[in-house]
């Protein structure tokens, strides 16, 4: 019964997140509110790590599978894609590398600097 209780807590926080999304007029999804709520609950001790860890670990492990239903939806959007195929591909792919390198390098350099100062 351990997992039933863990899923109950996770779904409860998810529902609270979705409630925030319904009440607050910002384009922030329920899942992001839920993530913040879960983190606050863990940090304040309202929820203890062992009360959610097992089920959370399972869900996180199978996470990549959960994208497949949505990514397969590309099949219905081939027409929309063709309209601006070249800029779409070039911008999407190149800017991913640009962001990866800039934010990664920035964090890496500052972290090393911080560790050296200590």
């Amino acid at each position, binding site marked *: 019964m351990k997992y039933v209780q863990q899923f109950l807590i996770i779904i409860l*926080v998810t529902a609270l997140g979705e409630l925030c999304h319904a009440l607050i007029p910002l384009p*922030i999804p329920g*899942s992001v509110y839920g993530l913040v709520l879960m983190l606050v609950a*863990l940090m304040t001790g309202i929820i203890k790590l062992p009360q959610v860890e097992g089920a959370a670990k399972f*869900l996180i492990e199978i996470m990549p599978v959960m994208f497949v239903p949505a990514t*397969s939806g590309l099949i219905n959007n081939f027409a929309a894609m063709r309209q601006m195929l070249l800029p779409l591909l070039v911008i*999407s792919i*190149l800017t991913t590398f640009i962001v990866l390198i800039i934010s*990664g390098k920035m964090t890496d350099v500052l*972290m090393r600097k911080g560790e050296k100062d200590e």
Partner: protein
Amino acid sequence: MNEFVAGIASFGILLTIAAYQLGAYLRKKTGSVFCNPMLVATATVIAVLLVFKIDYATYYDGARFIGYLLTPTTVCLAVPLYKQISVLKEHPVAITCGVLSGVVASMVSIFLFSLLFRLDHASYVTMLPKSITTAIGISLTEEYGGYPAITAIAIMITGITGHIAAEKTCKLFRIHHPAAVGLAIGAASHAMGTSRALEIGEVEGAMSSLALAVCGIVTVIVIPVFAHLM
């Protein structure tokens, strides 16, 4: 064929999991980064639907149950983040600067490429939220008059690119600190990248989860400034 499989409630779930397992098998066999399970699964599902003339709606009727799990799973990303919260407490400046530079780099580079391709306002704002999670990205596009369906595709291409190429790219550019690697992956490629970061390591997964949430929220705040540039 469409009507036949429409009668099998588990069809969408079976196809999703089997296609993913095929991808996992191919990655193990070949070791190639392009045999990524998520990418192989997507291609396999699309191929099966096209070959057997099955409607996406028929497939999605079952598959949506797997898709919905993404919401509670994103909530669960708080768990690895909580376990690594000491990293955040020790390096608040590095992490704040990393996240902000990621959001700004994304917007500025999209603006410059849009100038290069002479995109109109609608196409430009369609691309602007492409580095963040789909739910936020699509509502922003709607608000600023873009095309939500294309934003969804751009977000997907971004996610797949990060999911596949992030690890090698970080190595190539000598980004070694696990927290920096994770943060970069989350900032550049949202939840799809994060699912890969979680496989690389605990610190990577935690920082990617953090970047995914914070970049999404920061983008909501700064996008009005960039949306009016063009």
